[in-house]
């Protein structure tokens, strides 16, 4: 089928829609969970209101990162000027895959950071005296959970900026090969970050809550959190490796 600019624009619109809609659903859940836990903690411990309010805002901001990444990619897809007709099916696949990668890639990290922030608010409500220790642990944990959404952002940006134009001499078979490998790169990192993001968020949430309950054990808890988060991150790195191979090792 002869490619026209309109067909490439279809991919841009679809990618932008997938990316921002999925990310806004999950950001809403994550941010709302934090606000819910903070409100409940304020009810139990009204004197800790200031610390809870501060913690809620900071954790909501970090949780929103995944949503902002998706918004950036959607705006790039719509207004970045990638929809040139010389790009051919390569550009079509790259734009669809970029939207898929960051849209699905932000689900896990956002839900994970939301859980962490909620548990930290709960812990501060129980032990307002240790709010700084809990906030520090929460920020480290949320940063670890957001790492995998940064992997997805990197792949989405590489898909947009490093996909070559479709050569005029390319045979039909080569075009199918490259198109599907670009799509597969987006699917691999998009789905692959879901598990690690959620898992690391769970680790960090439990660690924050337990620092609130047993502050004396903080070094032990944080060590276990780092160890567990690092192991949990490994599958996201496998997905990143497969995406890089699909992007750059296929001609």
């Amino acid at each position, binding site marked *: 089928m002869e490619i026209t600019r309109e067909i490439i624009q279809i991919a841009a619109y679809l990618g932008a829609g997938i990316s921002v809609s999925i990310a806004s659903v999950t950001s809403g859940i994550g941010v709302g969970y934090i606000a819910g836990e903070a409100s409940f903690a304020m009810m139990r411990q009204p004197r800790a209101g200031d610390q809870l309010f501060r913690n809620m805002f900071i954790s909501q901001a970090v949780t929103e990162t995944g949503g902002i990444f998706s918004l950036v990619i959607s705006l790039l897809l719509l207004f970045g000027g990638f929809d040139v007709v010389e790009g051919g099916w390569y550009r079509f696949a790259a734009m669809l895959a970029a939207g898929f990668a960051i849209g699905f890639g932000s689900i896990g990290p956002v839900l994970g950071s939301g859980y962490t922030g909620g548990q930290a608010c709960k812990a501060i409500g129980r032990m307002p005296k240790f709010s700084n220790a809990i906030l520090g642990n929460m920020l480290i944990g949320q940063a670890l959970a957001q790492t995998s959404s940064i992997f997805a952002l990197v792949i989405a940006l590489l898909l947009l900026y490093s996909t070559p134009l479709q050569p005029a001499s390319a045979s039909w078979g080569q075009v199918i090969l490259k198109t599907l490998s670009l799509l597969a790169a987006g699917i691999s990192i998009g789905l692959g970050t879901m598990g690690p993001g959620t898992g690391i968020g769970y680790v960090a949430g439990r660690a924050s809550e337990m620092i609130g309950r047993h502050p004396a054990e903080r070094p032990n808890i944080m060590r276990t959190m780092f*160890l567990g988060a690092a192991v949990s991150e490994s599958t996201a790195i496998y997905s990143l490796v497969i995406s890089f191979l699909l992007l750059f090792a296929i001609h």
Partner: protein
Amino acid sequence: MEYIARAAALLGAGICMGIGALGPGVGEGFVAGKACEGIARSPENASLITRTMLVGQAVSESTGIYSLVVALLLIFST
């Protein structure tokens, strides 16, 4: 025709690693979260809990490594 088979193998590699990374990530995170809780509650058993956590995570990781191996085979040996 061979191009189409190879393209399908590449798409399969992406789906394989993407979905295959879901389970181990969640599972390992759950293990580590519960280990944090256990260490906080009974710190005297910290080394035992850490050891159990690592063994459990290693077993849970195995399916992620299977996905990686299958994805690499699909990319390089078809």
